[in-house]
């Protein structure tokens, strides 16, 4: 099921955000990861679908998870020279998550 793959990607995203202490998204993704994990392990189909829908709601414009960046300007623990590459990786994972959810 797509949720299992989405959960794997979500873990990668959370690890990336944790590495640079990129709040508040690190905490937000951690919460979603826990709920998705619970739904996948024990939840009925509707709970799994709910988890997928919740993850889909991350995406949008200004203010959404799509808007999130890892940046020293907001106090994240990242050197300026690393920001472009790290945010490119975040975008790659984000795209992958979206594609997985879209097909779920």
């Amino acid at each position, binding site marked *: 099921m797509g949720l299992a793959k989405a959960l794997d990607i979500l873990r990668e995203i959370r690890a990336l955000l944790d590495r640079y202490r990129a709040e508040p998204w690190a905490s937000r993704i951690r919460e979603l990861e826990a709920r998705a994990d619970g739904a996948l392990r024990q939840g009925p189909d509707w709970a799994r679908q709910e988890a997928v829908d919740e993850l889909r709601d991350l995406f949008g414009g*200004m203010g959404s998870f799509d808007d999130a960046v890892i940046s020293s300007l907001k106090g994240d623990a990242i050197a300026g020279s690393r920001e472009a590459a790290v945010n490119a990786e975040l975008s790659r994972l984000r795209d992958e998550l979206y594609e997985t959810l879209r097909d779920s």
Partner: protein
Amino acid sequence: MGARWYDPYLKQWIQPDTAVADLTDPQSLNRYSYADNNPLRYNDPTGHDVECPGCDASDAGVLAELGGTGGGEAEAAWNYFVSYSPVTDWEGPGLPANFRPEELAQEPASAPYVIAGVAVDAVAVAAMPEDSPVLPALRAASEGLIAEGAEEAGARGGVGAPDADQLLSSAGQVAQSAVESPASESAASETIPQLAPRIAETFQNGEYAARQLQSDLTVYRAEGVQMGRWFGAVRPDSAAMAERMYNVATFGNDLTQVPTYVIPEGAVVYEGLVEGGTGWQTFVPNPAEAGVGLLGAEPLPQGGF
């Protein structure tokens, strides 16, 4: 094309005038006002300098000018259109206040025919390079509409008003057909990648213009923590204004501050109206790579207007 964009809902330009203000003229100090806030008397063909096209005309005024054949026809037609439109609450050169807010007005006179290119798909039109095969057709059609307006004015002997709705509707159809034509697709830059569909969907009707900045661009955000990939053209005065313009309330963010950012010359940006909002947004795929800088931040007043 137009030098700046005008938001009829906000009743102001959404980009500041690049012309240096005249310290002896208080009106010029507001870099977002149009034509010294007197659009019926003045216009602003370039977006940077106020002109008074009717000041040298005879007492017969605008209607007499419409009968002429000189290069000022478009300008005169526009003045007539604005002055005699049945819509009485014009707020600028582009659209009446009751026009749909998403239909941003592009300044009419900067290209002499844009009276009929008013707005509906100004975003797409603005994205077309000057050598686009669509533009001549659009301008030719616009000329026809201007001529129709002049004929109508002549037929009425200067009494009554042209059908503004019809003119604008026709203008919209012209612009729409230009957007839908295959030629407009080829107008997009071949070197700038298109946005992923989900990002494009954050722009109204999925329409946006991509360009490489020729100079630094000052932009704003309303946010709780700084930095992101979407930026706004207008600095919000309150949290409610930010929500209305940029549709940021959807994601439950705290809107506590208004930072000002600068996107440097050379950066590739994607611009257009906000889906679900009334503002104009700029998307930068990777702000760190583009070199987006923070100029400063101020508290954002809560509540609305």
